[in-house]
């Protein structure tokens, strides 16, 4: 098929001619078209170039509002505010200094700050550069009255975010800010532009594409100097408001959780196990999102970043801790499922055991709990019982496998950015990392949720959800519905999504639930979790972190224990860090939430009812 002979002396004459013809054709056609544009239609374009040009004005879209699950009062609103912009190319060079100084005085901003926003390399630009994003109406009026003194300056309405609820809500909802250069590089291909407002954390960031809406445009016909031609028609493409979000969060429950936590460093999760909806997600210390979006918010943000209490971290899913005795829930399920020891078989606790060259002491110390079966071991949170079973019957491999089965060590895929997966240690991991053998002592530590094992409070909530659902964890989520901003009609409904489905038998989960109930009715949590409005089942936990008199305090529980409809059940996790003075607060906090949630009381009423007004449980000795 080749045009060219297969001789060693090939000839490319034909190719040469084809290429020359191609080049000549291109030259001729383009020259003729250029001739047509410049000479035939030249005068038409000349008048167009002199008199008419079009200017685009951006009409920013209102960001969607965010509601709690009742969709009555918004958690976030937009309030009127203006963005002040400059078109540097329209500002004559000789007026530049005066305009900057006058503006600085009016806006009460340092002149250098304004100059930094409009560096000399921008002076030729005919694009709008944003000087300030939240300017009050009163200042805009002052500028408008003397607009001839401010060539190149204009403004447009840019609603400001007003977070009606702050505190623990700010963590979840997050806040917005101007898009940074780095973010722009990443999001450029998704239609973001410089100057856009973008969600920085929390729901605002996770669902930015739903909330942001579509900016509209207004086209003004202007002459070549940029003056509007009044007679010309104005074309407007109206902006499309962003969609409203309805969260699974319940305002009252969230407030209850926030207050139950008080000023203790820690976090609380309230979850509906039947579908993964999060009713409350509180963390302390927190911050006020309004401070960050206000003018000068950068300084506040920098302070928050430096704060040793890390208020920007949401401790319920962005931190992980040793789960301590709450882990005995998984141990119980594993023992039952594997029939590692008969549930009625007893083990003697004398307060300590010797293993290797170490003595491991049960939290109760000598003389110990006496003889305990599985139910008793869990109810009394007896360390010796679980140590004996772990080392002789269950073994580390199965403990690792059950931990993973309950979702430990993997992300819960909650719809918020920045989640940590926690950690499940394995003998292989220890050898690889420390070049040390996994010892029996490591297994004992893990059996009581200490050592290398790390979980987030949200994962602990999931663990309990699995027990409640007899083997299923639904993906925890905060978005319930996407709604139309005009008529509130439902656009998207988030359906429950299975995160983990376990093969552990239903019978095992039923037995585990009964044992967890004993913890409340006759075990360690009998005194602190004493609410009468609902029957609770759960587990306490007290994690050693190296202080002699302070521990991480955990409680995970669910109620009602005897629910007929699983939709009524909530899981509550409270986690109080050891950084606080010791008061064994986690079970009390959970008690308050169960009391408040099931009786419809607010925090103050619940605290009064439970006799916890003005705080607090007496500084108790260590209990697990």
């Amino acid at each position, binding site marked *: *098929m080749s045009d060219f002979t297969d001789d060693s002396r090939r000839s*490319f004459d034909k190719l040469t001619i084809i290429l020359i013809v191609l080049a000549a054709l291109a030259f001729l056609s383009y*020259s003729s078209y*250029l001739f047509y544009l410049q000479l035939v239609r030249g*005068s038409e*374009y000349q008048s167009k170039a002199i008199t008419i040009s079009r200017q685009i004005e951006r009409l920013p879209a209102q960001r969607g509002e965010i509601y709690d699950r009742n969709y009555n009062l918004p958690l976030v609103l937009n309030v009127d505010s203006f963005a002040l912009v400059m078109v540097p190319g329209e500002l004559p*060079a000789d007026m530049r200094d005066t305009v900057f100084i006058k503006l600085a005085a009016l806006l009460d901003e340092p002149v250098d700050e304004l100059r930094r926003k409009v560096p000399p390399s921008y002076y*030729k630009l005919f694009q709008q550069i944003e000087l300030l994003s939240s300017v009050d109406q009163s200042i805009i009026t002052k500028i408008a009255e003397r607009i001839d003194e401010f060539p190149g300056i204009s403004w447009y309405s840019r609603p400001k975010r007003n977070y009606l609820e702050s505190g623990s809500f700010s963590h979840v909802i997050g806040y917005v800010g101007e898009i940074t250069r780095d973010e722009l590089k990443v999001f*450029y291909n998704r239609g973001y532009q410089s100057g856009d407002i973008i969600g920085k954390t929390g729901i605002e960031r996770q669902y930015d594409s739903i909330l942001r809406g579509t900016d509209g445009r207004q*086209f003004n016909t202007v002459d070549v100097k940029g003056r509007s031609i009044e007679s010309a028609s104005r074309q407007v493409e109206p902006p499309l408001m962003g969609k409203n979000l309805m969260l699974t969060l319940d305002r009252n429950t969230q407030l209850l959780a926030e207050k139950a936590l008080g000023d203790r460093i820690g976090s609380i999760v309230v979850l509906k196990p039947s579908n993964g909806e999060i009713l409350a997600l509180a963390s302390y210390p927190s911050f006020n999102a309004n401070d960050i979006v206000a003018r000068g918010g950068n300084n506040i943000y920098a302070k928050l970043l430096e704060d040793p209490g890390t208020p920007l971290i949401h401790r319920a899913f962005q931190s992980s801790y040793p789960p301590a005795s709450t882990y005995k829930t998984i141990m119980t399920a594993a023992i039952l499922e594997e029939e590692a020891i008969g549930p009625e078989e007893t083990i003697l606790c004398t307060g300590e055991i010797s293993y290797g060259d170490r003595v491991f002491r049960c939290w109760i110390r000598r003389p110990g709990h006496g003889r305990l079966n599985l139910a008793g071991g869990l109810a009394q949170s007896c360390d010796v019982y679980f140590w004996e079973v772990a080392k002789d019957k269950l073994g580390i491999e199965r403990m690792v496998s059950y931990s993973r089965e309950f979702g430990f060590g993997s992300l819960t895929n909650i719809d918020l950015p920045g989640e940590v997966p926690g950690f499940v240690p394995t003998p292989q991991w220890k050898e690889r990392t420390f070049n040390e053998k996994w010892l029996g002592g490591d297994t004992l530590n893990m059996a009581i949720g200490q050592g290398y094992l790390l979980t987030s409070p949200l994962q602990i909530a999931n663990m309990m959800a699995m027990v409640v659902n007899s083997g299923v964890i639904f993906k925890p989520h905060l978005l319930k519905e996407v709604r139309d901003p005009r008529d509130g009609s439902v656009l998207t409904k988030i359906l429950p999504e299975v995160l983990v489905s376990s093969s552990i038998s239903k019978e095992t989960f039923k037995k585990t639930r009964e044992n967890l109930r004993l913890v409340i009715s006759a075990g360690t949590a009998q005194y602190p979790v004493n609410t009468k409005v609902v029957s609770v089942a759960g587990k306490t936990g007290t994690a050693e972190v190296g202080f002699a008199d302070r521990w991480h305090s955990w409680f995970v529980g669910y109620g009602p224990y005897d629910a007929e409809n699983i939709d009524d059940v909530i899981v509550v996790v409270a986690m109080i860090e050891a950084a606080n003075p010791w008061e064994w607060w986690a079970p009390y906090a959970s008690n308050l939430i169960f009391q408040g949630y099931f009786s419809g009381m607010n925090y103050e009423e619940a605290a009064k009812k439970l006799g916890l007004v003005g705080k607090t449980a007496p500084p108790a000795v260590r209990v697990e």
Partner: protein
Amino acid sequence: MGSIVKLFKEMDWSIVAAVILLLVIGVLFIYSSGITSTGELVSNEYLKQIIWASSGMLIMILAATFDLKRVKDHFLLIYILSVILLVFTFLFGKTVNGARSWLGIAGEYGIQPSELMKITTAMYLARYLDTSSHEPSSIKRFALSFSIIALPMLLILIQPDFGTALVFIPIYLFMAYAGGINRRYLVFFVLTGALTIVFTVMPLWQRLIADKQSFVLRVFYDKPYFYYTLGIFFTVMVLSFLGFRLFKKKYYYWAIYTTLLFLVSMSASELGHKLLKDYQIMRLVVFIDPSIDPLGSGWNILQSITAIGSGGFVGKGFLKGTQSHYRYLPQQSTDFIFSIISEEMGFLGGLLVFALFLYILVKLSLIIKTQHSITQASFVSGMFGIIFFHFIINAGMAMGVMPITGIPLLFLSYGGSSLWAICLGLGLCLGIGARKFES
């Protein structure tokens, strides 16, 4: 030394002169693009361009002294090294305008390995076409030669740098044609590409431009009709295949050819709908009718046409253009440099630019005439393809007859990477031309 002197005597210096003239025009109008309406110079791009241009010329002369024939056995190695560099860039490169395509050298300066890849790919493809010229299976030769292009093209597409990846297509077509790849496959390839674009744009085009939506055309994109059509084409193809096997009639062959064409391009357009964002398809639609979106991407086209049209016969004079200095022609120094030249220098200036490109292209064709090996002829043909394609697309875009793709006008647009690459390629061509009597 003697051989170098002889080489320089044989070299076609008129091509070098034409390139220098284009570079000078480029620097002048990059300077012009940096001037505001108030007459201030606010960009030093023209100074940087002087550095790019002089280093480019140096690369060109050095490349001319380099004898391709001596290293032709190492083309595969050079090709593989460039691919590795490309992968490295994708993993560790700098992100500019959403594409991870830059390797930083110092501070703001950097290079785009994808540009170098064009030349090294052409070198290896030229070599392959030569060594495989006795391959009896023409379809295998087509498939292998195309995969040489497809690998770097894909790597550049995922950066994602659509414009640069696109240039590989003309490189392939011009080289494969020169290398004697069966023309039926090349035509198939071109038609598939064209039909894919048509089918990709069709839904948006029907929605936005067509006065009345044509129901008949919906069979090409609207589900489930889309699947029915695919099914019909597939059935016809299978039947024709059986027919061809049994009766060996020519028209069965062409039936397979046509149905396969539709099958491939329809599937590819479906993929396009999945992968491309609406606004990317929109650019193609806007090119068909800029007034659909007069202030989005259509804005650039209308502004550019106005700038060119208002230039008239002799232009408004150097530094006197109104469109370019008052109003925002975007990317004046890169994508729309031709608009400024035409506005300020008029038809005469535009014609001069066209003539210089024509001259370089004709001279390249004449170099091919003197060659006897596929390696050299197809390499020069590939360089012809690059220059031709950049010229057609960029100048066409400025005049509003080609879609906006971000492909620069070689030698004139501001920027170093693509300039260096073409200087390297053109220099190698000059060397090939000057050594015409050696083989």
